[in-house]
């Protein structure tokens, strides 16, 4: 596997937009050419190598054999891995907003924290976050009726609000807690949350949401029965009935809504 290492030359105050940091773009290019790739620091257009040190194997390889290693603080670097189809991106620390926007294949691994809109409108591939993730994991763009349509997102820490908003496919797994409204307007995606969540599955049309911790469940969900899944006793609900939804919602324990 060809490895290319990118290290920020300084701390960024103004965010950097670098949607061309992607194995598909890097694959056919030598290191020097990669350094010339256009990135934006705020309203200033510049070259990748002006903001980052770029090093690694110089010989072009296929995208699927390309690994981009992000070393240092990338928390203000946005849109890394946008529309990628193959290959790997590994961030040793945090990675900024919109990582993996619209990706359809390949892998992104983030050891630190992922910014908001991780895997926005993702279609395939896999994203793994060892730390926490921000809001709108796997969501869509404002006003769209579909967010993520396929692929897999795994967050080992906790995630923010609106996880999987308008999910139209794929799976999202959070080992920690999720914020408000995970799986809102879900249309067929699968969400599993290891911890707690607030008002999961609002306006869910179809799909499955499992909360292994405690959940505040909407009054528009119908309780069906308690089921045993993977050794866990879960309450099964059906909804969201405000929109005649046919989604399945499972929760280990339910916060009392009436108190």
């Amino acid at each position, binding site marked *: 596997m060809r490895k290319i290492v990118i290290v920020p030359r300084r701390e960024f*105050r*103004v*965010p950097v*937009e670098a949607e061309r940091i992607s194995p598909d773009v890097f694959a056919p290019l030598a290191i020097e050419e990669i350094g010339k790739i256009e990135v*934006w*620091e*705020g*309203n*200033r*257009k510049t070259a990748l190598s002006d903001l980052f040190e770029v090093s690694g194997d110089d010989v072009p390889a296929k995208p699927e054999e390309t690994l981009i290693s992000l070393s240092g603080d990338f928390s*203000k670097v946005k849109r890394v891995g946008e529309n990628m189809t193959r290959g790997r991106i590994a961030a040793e620390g945090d990675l900024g*907003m919109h990582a993996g926007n619209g990706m359809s294949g390949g892998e992104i691994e983030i050891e630190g924290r992922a910014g*908001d*809109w991780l895997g926005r409108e993702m279609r395939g591939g896999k994203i793994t976050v060892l730390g926490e993730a921000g*809001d*709108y994991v796997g969501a869509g*763009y*404002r*006003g769209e009726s579909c967010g993520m349509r396929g692929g897999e997102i795994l967050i080992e820490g906790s995630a923010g609000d609106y996880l999987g908003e308008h999910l139209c496919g794929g799976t999202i797994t959070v080992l920690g807690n999720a914020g*408000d*409204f995970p799986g*809102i307007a879900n249309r067929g995606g699968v969400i599993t949350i290891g911890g707690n969540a607030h*008002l999961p599955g*609002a*306006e869910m049309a179809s799909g499955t949401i499992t909360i292994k911790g405690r959940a*505040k469940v*909407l*009054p*528009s*969900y*119908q309780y069906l029965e308690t089921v045993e899944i993977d050794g866990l006793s879960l309450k099964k609900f059906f909804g*969201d*009935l*405000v*929109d005649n939804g046919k989604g399945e919602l499972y929760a280990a324990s339910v916060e009392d*809504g*009436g*108190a």
Partner: protein
Amino acid sequence: MAEDVLCPFCGCLCDDIKVEVENDQIVGVKRACKLGSSKIRGHERTKAPMVRKDEELVETSYEEAYDRAAKILKDAKRPLLYGWCSTVCETHKKGILLAEEVGGVIDSTATVCHGPSIIGIEEKGLAGSTLGQIKNRADLIVFWGANPAEAHPRHTLRYSSNSTGMFTPDGRKGRKVIVVDVRETRTAKNADKFLLIKPGTDYEVISALRMIVAGKGEIVPEKVAGVAKSDLEEAAEMMKAARFGAILFGLGMTHSRGRYKNVDNALSLVADLNGFTKFVVMAMRGHYNVAGFGQVCAWETGFPMSVDFSRGAPYFNPGETAACDLLAKREADAMMVVAADPVSNFPRATVEGMAEIPVIQIDPFPNPTTLLADVVIPSAVCGVEAEGTAYRMDGLSLRMKKVVDSPYPTDEAIIQNILDRVRRLGDDN
């Protein structure tokens, strides 16, 4: 005496104000509420442009202030141009052009008031009407998280619960009023039905109402967010029984937990209710022309707020490109504040973000933002000293009048001057 003057205070944009003028001074204001009257009469003004030198704001010429402002904006990599709620649309157009020119982010005060409402509208659309439609037809008014008795004093009499019209000759007597809020406000005290809900539970309450309206009430628990199901059933019944209902919502809905999703769900409730009767919904917008900025920004850029021009094309994504996002995440490296007072209204972390960067203020009046500003440019008061367009909370545009002359330049002229200088700086590069 100037007749039918528009009030430059709240989103009611009352247009029936009488202003008495003697020797180019305002000596009397009639028909306006206290809030409007005091705005029209005016108060302490910023007398001259100021720039910060050795930590102190010192008076200077307009020319120098424009130069300094242009330099700050031109040097910035992510300038934020914020405010716009208390100025006219002609200023907005110029401001958007300036934002394009400097590759900045432009955002309005909606970001701290009804921005979530707009995001909710992006999810569901808005079933609305002009205020006169409510005045003439509504026999049920629902104030949700809104307290017009304090915030929009003439709203009820001119447009809503206490107004009279073609099909509403009996005014308040012929209407029912429901109030939903987290405390018993003055508006709530005058309601026919008051639902006291726990803070941050709007979404659940709306979902429960939607279920009951749709005839699926048996699934709803006996208590939702502290409200007995029977109370919700009664409210739902009142809504369905109305001939024309209106939900008028305020910051209580948009700024409690659930945010834009609360609005989203309320819009769906209204859409559902239209299957049974006629219903409309409206945001009770705060400042008199915050709605106007949304309109102008939409037709100029395609988007109603939070527009990022850093790459030359509009990019819109509140949560990323809103003023609070830029400041709280310490992204902005310069800020221009026009006709607003973010220091009084922003969360603390956001104000701290302002303190670190150069700030330009354009405003007729000194306010807490002035204390943080590096360049202060006083302007004429729109609607009193300058004319121009404003949009009422229902999206109706009206022309504001000029009733007295002003020694100060208009906001529009100030921005044009800065724009000219920015262009010259660009030519020099």
